[in-house]
């Protein structure tokens, strides 16, 4: 039997670590497919809110690209929506860094005629009760973006009303709506400037 106290303590730790690892790994292996399925379902649901009539496997065809967007260099994820093998819209996942409390993750859909299909907030840390009206379950505010483009409203009107634009802001929260408006505008500008993202160029 092991006698030295340090060896004894070490062995004890080793045994407990091994057993813990076994149980955690077992749980991981038996839940990972279900977790992946849940994550995919959530993404499909989110994408489906912006575009519904695609017939490709949109998650499989996802690709990423490095672009200059919102004054930062970032890697965006792009989901091409296709029908009969022809791409008619792109859904891009990007980060707008200047929310009231930092990063806002957004999903923005743009079709091939440079029209917005819509905007959804994926994650944010805006003030509950004020800035969180950008979530669909709190308010329908964010739904107004579908159908808009750089000519509707005209480019100088892509601002909240307080800054001389056409978009309403919330009582007590201007920064959050301003962030979403600016972010959507800049995505449209990016698409106009760079054309449509192509899978081969990286």
């Amino acid at each position, binding site marked *: 039997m092991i006698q030295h*106290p340090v060896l*004894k*303590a070490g062995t*004890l*730790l080793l045994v*407990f*670590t091994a057993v*813990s690892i076994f*149980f*955690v790994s077992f*749980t*991981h292996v038996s*839940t990972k497919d*279900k*977790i992946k399925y*849940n994550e995919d379902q*959530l993404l499909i649901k989110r994408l489906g809110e912006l575009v519904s009539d695609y017939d490709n496997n949109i998650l499989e065809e996802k690709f990423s690209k490095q672009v200059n967007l919102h004054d930062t260099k970032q890697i965006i994820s792009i989901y091409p929506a296709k029908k009969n093998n022809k791409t008619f819209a792109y859904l891009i996942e990007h980060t707008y860094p200047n929310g009231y409390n930092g990063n806002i993750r957004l999903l923005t859909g743009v079709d091939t005629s440079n029209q917005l299909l819509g905007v959804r907030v994926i994650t944010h840390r805006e*003030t*509950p*009760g*004020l800035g969180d009206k950008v979530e669909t379950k709190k308010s329908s505010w964010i739904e107004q973006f579908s159908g808009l483009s750089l000519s509707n409203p005209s480019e100088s009107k892509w601002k909240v009303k307080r800054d001389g634009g056409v978009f309403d802001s919330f009582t007590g929260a201007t920064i959050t709506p301003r962030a979403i408006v600016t972010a959507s505008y800049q995505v449209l500008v990016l698409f106009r400037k760079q054309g449509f993202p192509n899978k081969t160029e990286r």
Partner: protein
Amino acid sequence: MEDYIKIVKNGLWTNNQALVALLGLCPLLAVTNNIVNAIGLGVATTFVLVASNVSVSIFRNQISKEVRIPIFVLLIASFVTIVELVMQSYFYDLYLILGIFVPLIVTNCAILGRAEAFASKNTWGKSALDGLMMGIGFSVVLIILGAVRELIGSGTLFDQSALLLGSLGDTLSITVFDDYQGTLLAILPPGAFIGLGLIVAVKNWFDQIKTI
């Protein structure tokens, strides 16, 4: 038998982890802006408490004094990871809300505290009961605080209970005040501190009445 009654009383009232020991305040204050979140975190914490108490007490004679703390932390962290994975696969919507707080259960001192103060000295049966009662005591405080903050903050009760119960939950959601503008203070962290302070005060007030 007397021992067991004492354990129950300790967990629920005399030594309530949230109101008397004031342990585990980080998750307590962070997730109690509505009842559903409170129930979710309460159940997860109770499960980890029972599991860690039982396993610590079973091995209490093998675990040497020098390395007991690392082993406790190891056990607690493993159980929390398992809870997180299970929640992620079966209650995914709830996980999306509680996600960042579930790993924080590891840092809930109440769990390490019970492992050290109770489970390492008692039989597994008593430890299981202690874990369960401490967990329920903690959860009840979470739920009361969640209810008060949800009611004052957004004017609803059991909002989004579909996250826990599926479609059954939709019927449970109550809008108490129609057309209510909400009180921001109750939803933000200061509201949690004020609310918890008031609950602690009420508990102390009851204790005082009893002794007079």
